[in-house]
């Protein structure tokens, strides 16, 4: 049984599994969530470090995003049973996972990590300040990083786990 849709632009023999398109209600929910995340990130930039307010705000926001992501995943699975299965999901590439794309992701991570390590191993230098030091100094960067962090939590929570074949 073909559980995915063949992408018209894909080469023959390659399929890209997709979930069902988002409904209007779901699009509105996503827009509201993104707006809320941006607003919270704005507040987060004003939290003083080493305070309980910052800890509670950070982990509270993360917990809320995580819970919403899990609920979203369960809702999508209930309403789109055709995409259940190992590795299935709206964004999986199926059998044609592009390793060059993975290499690009890993490459950017490695470069960023190397730069941050330079900030850790060298005396405080204006060019190699660590990410945490810079985002403490520039609050807009702090807000931007907070939004990215919430997005990463959403992805981790809303992506289905592998299921065993019965």
């Amino acid at each position, binding site marked *: 049984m073909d559980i995915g849709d063949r*992408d018209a*632009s*894909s080469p023959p023999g390659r399929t*890209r599994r997709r979930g069902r398109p988002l409904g209007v209600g779901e699009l509105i929910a996503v827009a509201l969530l993104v707006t809320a995340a941006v607003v919270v990130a704005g507040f987060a930039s004003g*939290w003083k*470090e*080493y*305070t309980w307010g*910052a*800890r509670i*705000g*950070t*982990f509270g926001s993360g917990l809320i995003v*995580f819970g919403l992501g899990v609920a979203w995943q369960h809702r999508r699975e209930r309403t789109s049973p055709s995409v259940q299965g*190992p*590795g*299935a*999901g709206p*964004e*999986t*590439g199926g059998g*044609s*996972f*592009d390793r060059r*794309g*993975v290499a*690009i*992701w890993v490459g*950017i991570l490695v*470069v*960023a990590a190397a*730069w941050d390590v330079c*900030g850790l191993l060298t005396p*405080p230098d*204006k*060019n190699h*300040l660590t*990410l*945490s030091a*810079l985002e*403490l*100094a*520039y609050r807009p*960067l*702090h807000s*931007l*990083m*907070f939004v*990215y*962090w919430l*997005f*990463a*939590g959403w*992805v*981790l929570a*809303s*992506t*289905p*786990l*592998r299921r065993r074949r019965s």
Partner: protein
Amino acid sequence: MAVIIGSDKVIGLTFWCCVLLAFTVIEVIGHVPASRMPSLGALVTRYFSHPIGRAFALVVWLYAGYHLFSH
């Protein structure tokens, strides 16, 4: 750690903004139907779909949040 805000931090700030921009661009490309670039969700599905791997990723995510935003 005392941090002096000034224009001499521009290089470091520019670097991190470029990194964030690069992640944003490849994530957007990953959602284009004709693209073969994997999105973050596809990577998580591929490499962190096992419960133990997912739990590890969540721990790393939580520590990143603690280190960057509350520490």
